[in-house]
């Protein structure tokens, strides 16, 4: 029994390494971790494989059924998590990471007018960090619609995107309040593209009754400004629902990837 447990321990560490190595090479990685950490995860995976193999060859003499059980549970969780928020297991196909793309156009043209691409989390961080947005600047942004009692009373809805710093555990759905006067009402959970301008509010309007979204259980909207929508278009849920934004320095324009996380 002891030898079985030790062998299982070694295989679980080795398996963790192989799982991390596979995940770091696939699209599914972005459903769990910020893609910036791919090389880190891959390097750690190699470390786990080496250490797991060493443990199989020369196991430490002690066993602990609880620790073995915990790592078995982890393996089951990893299988259950599958390819994360991607729609199908195709996310585990080994191919070029989605974040590697050529520099895209920062604008979208609509009726001849240029709209600057910015995802809702980037807008949130831009405003939160005190960067002013010119009143004539038009933005195009994509996100998930979130409604709440407070927002309904204000006649607004929230437009959110899950923003990940390191991993899914620190992700927060961030975004803007949207005023869409005269436009058709939207349902909670709809994915939409909003074209509009940022308008500063005379006084903060904190929204404290937001829940989460399908991808992230916790949400936050910027409370000192809103996005006044000129047009709203429905869209399919993007293949990669998360974005990976840090507070902007203001010294350089935001890096665009041409992917779902641009706007």
């Amino acid at each position, binding site marked *: 029994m002891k030898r079985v447990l030790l062998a299982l*321990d070694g295989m679980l560490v080795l398996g963790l390494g192989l799982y991390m190595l596979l995940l770091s090479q696939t699209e599914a990685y972005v459903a769990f971790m910020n893609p910036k950490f791919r090389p880190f995860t891959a390097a750690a995976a190699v470390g786990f494989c080496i250490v797991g193999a060493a443990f199989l060859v020369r196991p430490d003499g002690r066993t602990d059924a609880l620790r073995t059980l915990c790592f078995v549970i982890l393996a089951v969780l990893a299988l259950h998590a599958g390819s994360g928020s991607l729609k199908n297991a195709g996310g585990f196909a080994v191919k070029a990471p989605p974040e590697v793309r050529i520099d895209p156009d920062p604008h979208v043209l609509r009726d001849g007018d240029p709209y600057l691409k910015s995802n809702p989390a980037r807008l949130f961080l831009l405003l939160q960090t005190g960067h002013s947005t010119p009143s004539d600047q038009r933005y195009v942004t994509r996100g998930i619609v979130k409604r709440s009692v407070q927002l309904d009373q204000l006649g607004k809805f929230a437009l959110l995107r899950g923003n990940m710093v390191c991993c899914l555990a620190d992700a927060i759905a961030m975004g803007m309040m949207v005023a869409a006067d005269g436009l058709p009402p939207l349902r909670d959970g709809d994915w939409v593209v909003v074209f509009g301008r940022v308008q500063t509010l005379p006084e903060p309007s904190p929204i404290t009754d937001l829940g989460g979204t399908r991808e992230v259980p916790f949400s936050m909207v910027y409370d000192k400004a809103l996005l006044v929508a000129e047009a709203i278009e429905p869209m399919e849920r993007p293949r990669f629902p998360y974005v990976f934004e840090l507070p902007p320095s203001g010294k350089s324009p935001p890096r665009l990837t041409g992917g779902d996380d641009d706007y």
Partner: protein
Amino acid sequence: MLFQEIQLMARIAVSIVLEAAPFLLLGSLLSAVVDRYVDAERIARRIPKGPLGRMAVGLLGGMVIPICECGSVPLARRFLGKGVPPLSAITYMLAAPVINPVVMLSTYVAFISNFKMVIARVSVVACGAALTGWLCADWHADSNRLASLPELNHFHSHGAQNMSTDGRDRWMVLDLLSSGASEFLDMGKYLVLGALASAAFKVFLPWQLVQALAGSATLSIAVLMLLAVLLCVCSEADAFVAASFVYVPPAAQLGFMALGAMVDLKLMGMYFSAFPKRIAWMLIIVPMVCVFGLTFLLSFVMN
């Protein structure tokens, strides 16, 4: 609906392990290296004799060996086993995840070049770590430290003794790696359990209630500290999460960042595994009280 939530929970738990496991492995391997190569007498000679010196070693150790909270526990445990005074080892364990260049820089970036927030975070963590280390120094004086520590991992008997005299032992590297793996497995079980508990809280917690409570200035510090314990966010990323809590006062954001690096669900399990119960309780309670008291006082001057 419940299936979706359970799947989200699984994803969050896996992501916590993916993020933290490399640091835990690093700490476990460093621990094995310390066990194998660091001479206890040399350490004893180099550590200052006075309490202030020992405290300073613990506080500044993170600048030399920067490691996040998951990795610092096995390393500190091994330092203790090697004769490093608890005042230094425990202070290091609690301070290193914050008082290191990487985390200080991430705090600076997250709070948009707000150097005051960096100073405040470092100061609060330094006070909490030093006070906890100082209170745990009694443990060192009153008891046989090695006897009261849970058993450390050992190399194979045929390896450890032979290796020390002959570096050519062909099993040396394998034994070192195997010992690191064993320590990782020992600590990793708490990482897995902590990640599961944290993911469950994150998915099933009534966030509307949390947001409503955090809106109150008096409760916000306690609520954000509770969140820090429940969410298990790595010290390298928690500043960005704290900065996103735009509705709460800066003191509450500070409480979140200062406590999360010293106490969270996964760390609690590790503390009880690595230390005697009395010490584990002190590692949990003293930083909580200290962080709450200091952030509450700072709330009068922070805006």
